[in-house]
Protein backbone atom coordinates (compact mmCIF):
# COMPACT_ATOMS: atom_id res chain seq x y z
CA UNK A 1 0.00 0.00 0.00
CA UNK A 2 2.76 2.36 0.97
CA UNK A 3 4.62 1.36 -2.19
CA UNK A 4 1.51 2.16 -4.24
CA UNK A 5 1.12 5.61 -2.74
CA UNK A 6 4.76 6.28 -3.49
CA UNK A 7 4.25 5.24 -7.12
CA UNK A 8 1.10 7.35 -7.45
CA UNK A 9 2.91 10.33 -6.04
CA UNK A 10 5.85 9.85 -8.38
CA UNK A 11 3.49 9.50 -11.35
CA UNK A 12 1.69 12.68 -10.40
CA UNK A 13 4.81 14.77 -9.83
CA UNK A 14 6.56 13.59 -12.99
CA UNK A 15 3.57 14.17 -15.30
CA UNK A 16 2.92 17.55 -13.68
CA UNK A 17 6.55 18.54 -14.21
CA UNK A 18 6.65 17.29 -17.82
CA UNK A 19 3.35 18.93 -18.72
CA UNK A 20 4.58 22.27 -17.39
CA UNK A 21 7.38 22.12 -19.98
CA UNK A 22 5.42 20.90 -22.99
CA UNK A 23 5.94 24.02 -25.05
CA UNK A 24 5.51 23.99 -28.81
CA UNK A 25 2.89 21.29 -29.28
CA UNK A 26 1.99 17.91 -27.88
CA UNK A 27 4.87 16.02 -29.48
CA UNK A 28 7.34 17.69 -27.15
CA UNK A 29 6.08 15.55 -24.29
CA UNK A 30 7.30 12.39 -26.06
CA UNK A 31 11.07 13.13 -25.77
CA UNK A 32 10.49 14.36 -22.22
CA UNK A 33 8.62 11.19 -21.27
CA UNK A 34 11.21 9.04 -22.98
CA UNK A 35 13.96 10.69 -20.97
CA UNK A 36 12.07 10.30 -17.69
CA UNK A 37 10.27 6.95 -17.95
CA UNK A 38 12.57 5.06 -20.35
CA UNK A 39 16.05 6.34 -19.56
CA UNK A 40 15.81 7.63 -15.99
CA UNK A 41 13.26 5.37 -14.24
CA UNK A 42 13.51 2.45 -16.72
CA UNK A 43 9.81 1.79 -16.24
CA UNK A 44 9.02 1.50 -19.93
CA UNK A 45 10.99 -0.03 -22.82
CA UNK A 46 12.10 1.99 -25.81
CA UNK A 47 9.91 0.11 -28.31
CA UNK A 48 6.94 0.18 -25.99
CA UNK A 49 7.24 3.97 -25.79
CA UNK A 50 7.01 4.14 -29.59
CA UNK A 51 3.93 1.91 -29.53
CA UNK A 52 2.32 4.11 -26.88
CA UNK A 53 3.13 7.17 -29.01
CA UNK A 54 1.39 5.56 -31.98
CA UNK A 55 -1.70 4.91 -29.85
CA UNK A 56 -1.64 8.45 -28.43
CA UNK A 57 -1.30 9.84 -31.92
CA UNK A 58 -4.14 7.86 -33.46
CA UNK A 59 -6.65 8.55 -30.68
CA UNK A 60 -8.73 11.72 -30.57
CA UNK A 61 -7.69 14.51 -28.21
CA UNK A 62 -4.40 16.07 -27.19
CA UNK A 63 -1.29 13.92 -27.67
CA UNK A 64 0.18 14.98 -24.33
CA UNK A 65 -2.96 13.94 -22.46
CA UNK A 66 -3.26 10.65 -24.37
CA UNK A 67 0.39 9.77 -23.78
CA UNK A 68 -0.01 10.49 -20.07
CA UNK A 69 -3.09 8.27 -19.86
CA UNK A 70 -1.11 5.43 -21.46
CA UNK A 71 1.89 5.78 -19.18
CA UNK A 72 -0.36 5.97 -16.11
CA UNK A 73 -2.35 2.92 -17.20
CA UNK A 74 0.81 0.95 -17.97
CA UNK A 75 2.35 1.61 -14.57
CA UNK A 76 -0.64 1.66 -12.22
CA UNK A 77 -3.83 0.67 -14.04
CA UNK A 78 -6.93 2.84 -14.45
CA UNK A 79 -6.29 4.68 -11.19
CA UNK A 80 -2.78 5.46 -12.45
CA UNK A 81 -4.28 6.88 -15.64
CA UNK A 82 -6.57 9.14 -13.60
CA UNK A 83 -3.59 10.39 -11.63
CA UNK A 84 -1.49 11.12 -14.72
CA UNK A 85 -4.40 12.90 -16.45
CA UNK A 86 -4.75 15.09 -13.39
CA UNK A 87 -1.01 15.78 -13.34
CA UNK A 88 -1.04 16.67 -17.03
CA UNK A 89 -4.04 19.01 -17.11
CA UNK A 90 -3.24 20.83 -13.88
CA UNK A 91 -0.34 23.01 -15.16
CA UNK A 92 -2.22 24.43 -18.18
CA UNK A 93 -5.32 24.85 -15.99
CA UNK A 94 -3.38 26.88 -13.41
CA UNK A 95 -1.37 28.90 -15.94
CA UNK A 96 -4.34 29.73 -18.14
CA UNK A 97 -6.56 30.74 -15.21
CA UNK A 98 -3.90 33.21 -14.14
CA UNK A 99 -3.24 34.48 -17.65
CA UNK A 100 -6.90 34.83 -18.62
CA UNK A 101 -7.07 37.61 -16.02
CA UNK A 102 -4.24 39.68 -17.52
CA UNK A 103 -3.59 38.27 -20.95
CA UNK A 104 -2.87 41.46 -22.88
CA UNK A 105 -0.04 42.30 -20.47
CA UNK A 106 1.39 38.83 -20.91
CA UNK A 107 1.00 38.78 -24.68
CA UNK A 108 2.66 42.17 -25.19
CA UNK A 109 5.52 41.65 -22.75
CA UNK A 110 8.89 41.86 -24.50
CA UNK A 111 10.60 39.75 -21.85
CA UNK A 112 8.10 36.92 -22.32
CA UNK A 113 8.58 37.14 -26.07
CA UNK A 114 12.37 37.00 -25.86
CA UNK A 115 12.33 34.00 -23.54
CA UNK A 116 9.85 32.18 -25.77
CA UNK A 117 11.80 32.98 -28.91
CA UNK A 118 14.88 31.42 -27.34
CA UNK A 119 12.94 28.45 -26.06
CA UNK A 120 11.49 27.76 -29.48
CA UNK A 121 14.97 26.95 -30.81
CA UNK A 122 15.69 24.82 -27.72
CA UNK A 123 12.46 22.86 -28.07
CA UNK A 124 13.22 22.15 -31.74
CA UNK A 125 16.68 20.90 -30.70
CA UNK A 126 15.15 18.58 -28.07
CA UNK A 127 12.83 16.99 -30.64
CA UNK A 128 15.50 16.68 -33.35
CA UNK A 129 17.89 15.09 -30.83
CA UNK A 130 15.42 12.38 -29.87
CA UNK A 131 14.58 11.71 -33.52
CA UNK A 132 18.31 11.23 -34.26
CA UNK A 133 18.54 8.71 -31.40
CA UNK A 134 15.48 6.79 -32.55
CA UNK A 135 16.65 6.76 -36.18
CA UNK A 136 20.06 5.38 -35.17
CA UNK A 137 18.35 2.60 -33.20
CA UNK A 138 16.13 1.82 -36.18
CA UNK A 139 19.08 1.67 -38.60
CA UNK A 140 20.90 -0.69 -36.24
CA UNK A 141 18.18 -3.30 -36.82
CA UNK A 142 19.38 -3.51 -40.45
CA UNK A 143 15.94 -4.19 -41.87
CA UNK A 144 14.68 -2.64 -45.09
CA UNK A 145 10.95 -2.40 -44.30
CA UNK A 146 11.15 -0.04 -41.29
CA UNK A 147 13.57 2.30 -43.08
CA UNK A 148 11.35 2.48 -46.13
CA UNK A 149 8.25 3.08 -44.02
CA UNK A 150 10.07 5.83 -42.14
CA UNK A 151 11.12 7.62 -45.32
CA UNK A 152 7.69 7.16 -46.89
CA UNK A 153 5.85 8.38 -43.80
CA UNK A 154 8.14 11.40 -43.54
CA UNK A 155 7.49 12.43 -47.14
CA UNK A 156 3.75 11.82 -46.70
CA UNK A 157 3.48 13.97 -43.59
CA UNK A 158 6.10 16.66 -44.17
CA UNK A 159 5.67 17.33 -47.88
CA UNK A 160 2.14 16.19 -48.66
CA UNK A 161 0.54 16.88 -45.25
CA UNK A 162 -1.42 13.64 -45.44
CA UNK A 163 -3.73 12.98 -42.48
CA UNK A 164 -1.94 11.15 -39.63
CA UNK A 165 -4.67 8.53 -39.36
CA UNK A 166 -4.12 7.56 -43.00
CA UNK A 167 -0.36 7.31 -42.43
CA UNK A 168 -0.80 5.22 -39.30
CA UNK A 169 -3.25 2.79 -40.90
CA UNK A 170 -1.11 2.44 -44.03
CA UNK A 171 2.12 1.75 -42.13
CA UNK A 172 0.30 -0.71 -39.85
CA UNK A 173 -0.94 -2.63 -42.90
CA UNK A 174 2.54 -2.58 -44.47
CA UNK A 175 3.97 -3.94 -41.23
CA UNK A 176 1.40 -6.74 -41.01
CA UNK A 177 1.83 -7.74 -44.65
CA UNK A 178 5.60 -7.71 -44.34
CA UNK A 179 5.42 -9.89 -41.23
CA UNK A 180 3.10 -12.34 -42.99
CA UNK A 181 5.38 -12.37 -46.03
CA UNK A 182 8.59 -13.09 -44.11
CA UNK A 183 6.86 -15.84 -42.11
CA UNK A 184 5.44 -17.38 -45.27
CA UNK A 185 8.75 -17.23 -47.13
CA UNK A 186 10.60 -18.76 -44.19
CA UNK A 187 8.07 -21.58 -43.87
CA UNK A 188 7.92 -22.44 -47.57
CA UNK A 189 11.70 -22.18 -47.76
CA UNK A 190 11.98 -24.61 -44.86
CA UNK A 191 9.76 -27.20 -46.55
CA UNK A 192 12.03 -27.56 -49.54
Amino acid at each position, binding site marked *: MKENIKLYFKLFTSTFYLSAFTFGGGFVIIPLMRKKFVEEYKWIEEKEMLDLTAIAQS*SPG*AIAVNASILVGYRLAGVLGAMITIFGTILP*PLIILSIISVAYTVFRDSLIVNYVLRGMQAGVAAVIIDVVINMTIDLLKERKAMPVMVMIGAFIATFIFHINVIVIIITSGVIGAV*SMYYTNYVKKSGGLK
Partner: protein
Amino acid sequence: MIYLKLFWSFLQIGLFSFGGGYAAIPLIQSQVVDINQWLSMSEFADVITISQMTPGPIAINSATFVGTRIAGIQGAIVATIGCVFPSCIIVLSLAYIYYRYRGLSVVQGVLNGLRPAVIAMIGSAGIALMNLAFENGKGVSGKMGNVNFISVAIFSLAIIILRKWKSNPIFVMIGSGILGLCVYSLDL
Protein backbone atom coordinates in the same frame (compact mmCIF):
# COMPACT_ATOMS: atom_id res chain seq x y z
CA MET B 1 -27.31 24.35 -17.37
CA ILE B 2 -24.34 26.39 -18.52
CA TYR B 3 -22.07 23.73 -17.03
CA LEU B 4 -23.81 21.08 -19.06
CA LYS B 5 -23.44 23.17 -22.19
CA LEU B 6 -19.72 23.72 -21.54
CA PHE B 7 -19.23 20.04 -20.86
CA TRP B 8 -21.08 18.99 -24.00
CA SER B 9 -19.25 21.47 -26.25
CA PHE B 10 -15.80 20.50 -25.06
CA LEU B 11 -16.71 16.83 -25.12
CA GLN B 12 -17.28 17.19 -28.86
CA ILE B 13 -13.98 19.03 -29.24
CA GLY B 14 -12.19 16.27 -27.38
CA LEU B 15 -13.90 13.54 -29.35
CA PHE B 16 -13.35 14.87 -32.85
CA SER B 17 -9.91 16.47 -32.70
CA PHE B 18 -7.60 13.94 -34.29
CA GLY B 19 -3.95 14.66 -34.93
CA GLY B 20 -3.64 17.06 -32.03
CA GLY B 21 -2.62 20.70 -31.86
CA TYR B 22 -3.47 22.83 -34.85
CA ALA B 23 -5.90 20.32 -36.26
CA ALA B 24 -8.19 21.12 -33.33
CA ILE B 25 -8.35 24.89 -33.97
CA PRO B 26 -11.22 24.96 -36.52
CA LEU B 27 -13.23 22.60 -34.33
CA ILE B 28 -12.75 24.75 -31.22
CA GLN B 29 -13.58 27.85 -33.21
CA SER B 30 -16.86 26.44 -34.47
CA GLN B 31 -17.98 25.46 -30.95
CA VAL B 32 -16.73 28.47 -29.04
CA VAL B 33 -17.11 31.33 -31.52
CA ASP B 34 -19.72 30.27 -34.08
CA ILE B 35 -22.19 28.02 -32.27
CA ASN B 36 -22.14 29.29 -28.69
CA GLN B 37 -20.64 32.76 -29.13
CA TRP B 38 -18.72 32.52 -25.89
CA LEU B 39 -15.76 34.39 -27.40
CA SER B 40 -15.40 36.92 -30.20
CA MET B 41 -13.08 36.03 -33.06
CA SER B 42 -10.37 38.36 -31.79
CA GLU B 43 -10.58 36.88 -28.28
CA PHE B 44 -10.27 33.46 -29.86
CA ALA B 45 -7.16 34.60 -31.73
CA ASP B 46 -5.76 35.68 -28.37
CA VAL B 47 -6.40 32.21 -26.95
CA ILE B 48 -4.41 30.71 -29.82
CA THR B 49 -1.56 33.17 -29.23
CA ILE B 50 -1.50 32.42 -25.52
CA SER B 51 -1.59 28.68 -26.24
CA GLN B 52 1.51 29.04 -28.35
CA MET B 53 3.22 30.90 -25.54
CA THR B 54 2.29 28.58 -22.69
CA PRO B 55 2.69 24.85 -22.14
CA GLY B 56 -0.28 22.59 -22.62
CA PRO B 57 -2.60 21.52 -25.43
CA ILE B 58 -4.66 24.16 -27.26
CA ALA B 59 -7.92 22.35 -26.50
CA ILE B 60 -7.22 22.28 -22.75
CA ASN B 61 -6.10 25.91 -22.78
CA SER B 62 -9.27 26.96 -24.60
CA ALA B 63 -11.38 24.96 -22.16
CA THR B 64 -9.80 26.76 -19.23
CA PHE B 65 -10.03 30.19 -20.84
CA VAL B 66 -13.63 29.85 -22.01
CA GLY B 67 -14.74 28.07 -18.84
CA THR B 68 -13.28 30.80 -16.63
CA ARG B 69 -14.94 33.48 -18.75
CA ILE B 70 -18.37 31.89 -18.75
CA ALA B 71 -18.66 30.29 -15.33
CA GLY B 72 -15.55 30.91 -13.25
CA ILE B 73 -13.18 28.24 -12.00
CA GLN B 74 -15.94 25.61 -11.84
CA GLY B 75 -16.65 26.33 -15.49
CA ALA B 76 -12.98 25.83 -16.34
CA ILE B 77 -12.93 22.50 -14.54
CA VAL B 78 -16.15 21.25 -16.14
CA ALA B 79 -14.97 22.25 -19.64
CA THR B 80 -11.57 20.62 -19.11
CA ILE B 81 -13.12 17.37 -17.88
CA GLY B 82 -15.41 17.36 -20.92
CA CYS B 83 -12.39 17.83 -23.12
CA VAL B 84 -10.37 14.88 -21.78
CA PHE B 85 -13.30 12.52 -21.18
CA PRO B 86 -13.45 11.02 -24.71
CA SER B 87 -9.66 10.53 -24.84
CA CYS B 88 -9.84 8.82 -21.53
CA ILE B 89 -12.37 6.18 -22.65
CA ILE B 90 -10.87 5.60 -26.10
CA VAL B 91 -7.20 5.57 -25.06
CA LEU B 92 -7.85 3.27 -22.10
CA SER B 93 -9.70 0.81 -24.36
CA LEU B 94 -6.84 0.86 -26.87
CA ALA B 95 -4.30 0.44 -24.07
CA TYR B 96 -6.20 -2.59 -22.80
CA ILE B 97 -6.26 -4.12 -26.28
CA TYR B 98 -2.58 -3.33 -26.82
CA TYR B 99 -1.36 -4.97 -23.60
CA ARG B 100 -3.62 -7.96 -24.12
CA TYR B 101 -2.82 -8.73 -27.74
CA ARG B 102 0.60 -7.28 -28.42
CA GLY B 103 2.15 -10.77 -28.31
CA LEU B 104 0.18 -11.89 -31.38
CA SER B 105 2.19 -12.13 -34.57
CA VAL B 106 -0.25 -9.95 -36.57
CA VAL B 107 -0.16 -7.24 -33.91
CA GLN B 108 3.64 -7.49 -33.84
CA GLY B 109 3.67 -6.93 -37.59
CA VAL B 110 1.39 -3.90 -37.33
CA LEU B 111 3.55 -2.43 -34.55
CA ASN B 112 6.71 -3.03 -36.59
CA GLY B 113 5.19 -0.86 -39.29
CA LEU B 114 3.92 1.79 -36.88
CA ARG B 115 7.21 2.47 -35.04
CA PRO B 116 9.14 3.90 -38.00
CA ALA B 117 6.07 5.93 -39.02
CA VAL B 118 5.92 7.45 -35.54
CA ILE B 119 9.60 8.42 -35.72
CA ALA B 120 8.92 10.06 -39.10
CA MET B 121 5.99 12.04 -37.71
CA ILE B 122 7.92 13.26 -34.69
CA GLY B 123 10.76 14.21 -37.04
CA SER B 124 8.39 16.12 -39.26
CA ALA B 125 6.96 18.02 -36.26
CA GLY B 126 10.52 18.81 -35.12
CA ILE B 127 11.59 20.19 -38.49
CA ALA B 128 8.42 22.28 -38.77
CA LEU B 129 9.19 23.75 -35.33
CA MET B 130 12.81 24.34 -36.32
CA ASN B 131 11.74 26.24 -39.45
CA LEU B 132 9.41 28.36 -37.34
CA ALA B 133 12.22 29.17 -34.93
CA PHE B 134 14.66 30.04 -37.73
CA GLU B 135 12.25 32.39 -39.45
CA ASN B 136 12.78 36.03 -38.75
CA GLY B 137 10.01 37.96 -37.04
CA LYS B 138 7.80 36.72 -34.24
CA GLY B 139 6.40 33.52 -35.68
CA VAL B 140 4.82 35.57 -38.47
CA SER B 141 6.16 34.12 -41.69
CA GLY B 142 8.08 37.01 -43.21
CA LYS B 143 10.36 37.22 -46.17
CA MET B 144 11.79 33.92 -47.31
CA GLY B 145 15.51 33.45 -46.83
CA ASN B 146 15.44 35.86 -43.93
CA VAL B 147 17.11 33.67 -41.36
CA ASN B 148 17.25 34.45 -37.67
CA PHE B 149 20.86 33.63 -36.86
CA ILE B 150 20.41 33.92 -33.11
CA SER B 151 17.86 31.11 -33.25
CA VAL B 152 20.20 29.03 -35.41
CA ALA B 153 23.01 29.58 -32.88
CA ILE B 154 20.83 28.64 -29.89
CA PHE B 155 19.56 25.58 -31.74
CA SER B 156 23.08 24.42 -32.65
CA LEU B 157 24.35 24.94 -29.13
CA ALA B 158 21.38 23.03 -27.71
CA ILE B 159 21.89 20.11 -30.11
CA ILE B 160 25.60 19.89 -29.24
CA ILE B 161 24.87 19.90 -25.50
CA LEU B 162 22.10 17.31 -25.87
CA ARG B 163 24.13 14.94 -28.03
CA LYS B 164 27.43 15.28 -26.22
CA TRP B 165 26.33 15.25 -22.58
CA LYS B 166 22.84 13.78 -22.87
CA SER B 167 21.58 16.60 -20.66
CA ASN B 168 18.07 16.80 -19.31
CA PRO B 169 15.93 18.33 -22.11
CA ILE B 170 14.06 20.51 -19.64
CA PHE B 171 17.27 22.22 -18.53
CA VAL B 172 18.23 22.72 -22.18
CA MET B 173 14.84 24.36 -22.81
CA ILE B 174 15.15 26.64 -19.79
CA GLY B 175 18.73 27.49 -20.81
CA SER B 176 17.64 28.42 -24.34
CA GLY B 177 14.94 30.67 -22.87
CA ILE B 178 17.45 32.49 -20.67
CA LEU B 179 19.90 32.76 -23.56
CA GLY B 180 17.13 34.15 -25.77
CA LEU B 181 16.26 36.76 -23.16
CA CYS B 182 19.91 37.88 -22.81
CA VAL B 183 20.77 37.97 -26.51
CA TYR B 184 17.54 39.56 -27.75
CA SER B 185 17.63 42.23 -25.02
CA LEU B 186 21.17 43.18 -26.06
CA ASP B 187 20.20 43.30 -29.70
CA LEU B 188 17.87 46.23 -29.05
